[in-house]
């Protein structure tokens, strides 16, 4: 596993306790797993995606990632409706390892409560949780 100081944690996204990231542009929020998650999971071989149109509440399970021999659940950082899924991951799940904040994004969500994203952690708070 990487040292905490070696993790790539951008300043301009929000983080969850389950190691997802969320980036809001208007009321559309792009969501993926962060560098800590992809590093400790190891090589990701499959990403189970929801359907466009599915709706979830914050903290619901919305899919999973399978690294070798282990299936890990994914959790919604916020509530809302799935408006896009990263179909590239069906053939190239390794994008989550290689480029977790750009090419390895997982879902886009139309937020049903714009205040929720402000309750997520910024980088400093997330780092504090990791070190806890």
């Amino acid at each position, binding site marked *: *596993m990487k040292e905490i100081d070696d993790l790539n944690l951008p300043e301009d996204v929000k983080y969850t306790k*389950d190691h997802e990231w969320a980036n809001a542009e208007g009321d559309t929020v792009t969501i993926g797993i962060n560098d800590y998650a992809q*590093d*400790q*999971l*190891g*090589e990701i071989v*499959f990403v*189970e995606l929801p359907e466009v149109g599915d709706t979830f509440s914050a903290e619901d*399970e919305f899919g*999973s990632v*399978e*690294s*070798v*021999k*282990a*299936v*890990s*659940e994914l*959790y919604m950082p916020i509530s809302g409706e799935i408006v896009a899924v990263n179909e590239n991951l069906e053939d190239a799940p390794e994008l989550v390892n290689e480029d977790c904040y750009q090419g390895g994004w997982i879902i886009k969500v139309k937020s049903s409560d714009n205040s929720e994203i402000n309750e997520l952690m910024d980088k400093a708070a997330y780092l504090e949780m990791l070190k806890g």
Partner: protein
Amino acid sequence: MPERIRSRLRTCVFQDLQVLEYRRALDLQVDARNAKIRDRSLQDHLFFVQHPPVFTFGRRGGKENLMKPDNFLEQQGIDMVQTDRGGNITYHGPGQAVLYPVVDLERARIGVADFVYGLEEIMGRTAQDFGVAITRDPRNRGMWTGSRKIGSVGLSIKHGISIHGLALNVSLDLTPFSWINPCGLSRVAMTSLEQEMQISQKKDIRVSMDAVKEKFATYFCRVFNFQLIRETTHA
């Protein structure tokens, strides 16, 4: 080894479930995990168990790798269970040593990939103690002796807490493995500790399941930096 796993010292409740149906053992793991999700300060659990005959499927399936019709298995009295673990189809039966760690990997500071590696390490060290040399195959996980598969790993992780675990073939009847493509791999020969010892030592050898249990407990503690609290009451 494994220096790569630099975990925090934790305590864990160790329980021998003896021979228990797969579904009941799964319920115990799920209940223990759900309790830990609600209260992260609760202790981790380690269950040692053997199952009556059962086929189980991984999150992404595996039924396509079952080469016998359902009614054949029903006639044999063999259950089939869909699970949410990683990996594909596998078989469990009496004579197979199964270890289920319900462990808060986040709090223990163990990555999922390292946890899989460490579970394989436990099987490898155990087999080596019985004189059976084990190899890894980075493309096909689990534990191998030559080209024959002797042990498997599969996990489900929720909120950083594991269930499911490892299974090492000790003395079980391997026939039901011939009814499937184990782990989704075709033409894989399965083997067991006793079979390998009989091949190498050219005489019948019996391996005590209690001895395997103790080695699992010892190596689990060493590999992952745990102290065990032994639970003596039956589930």
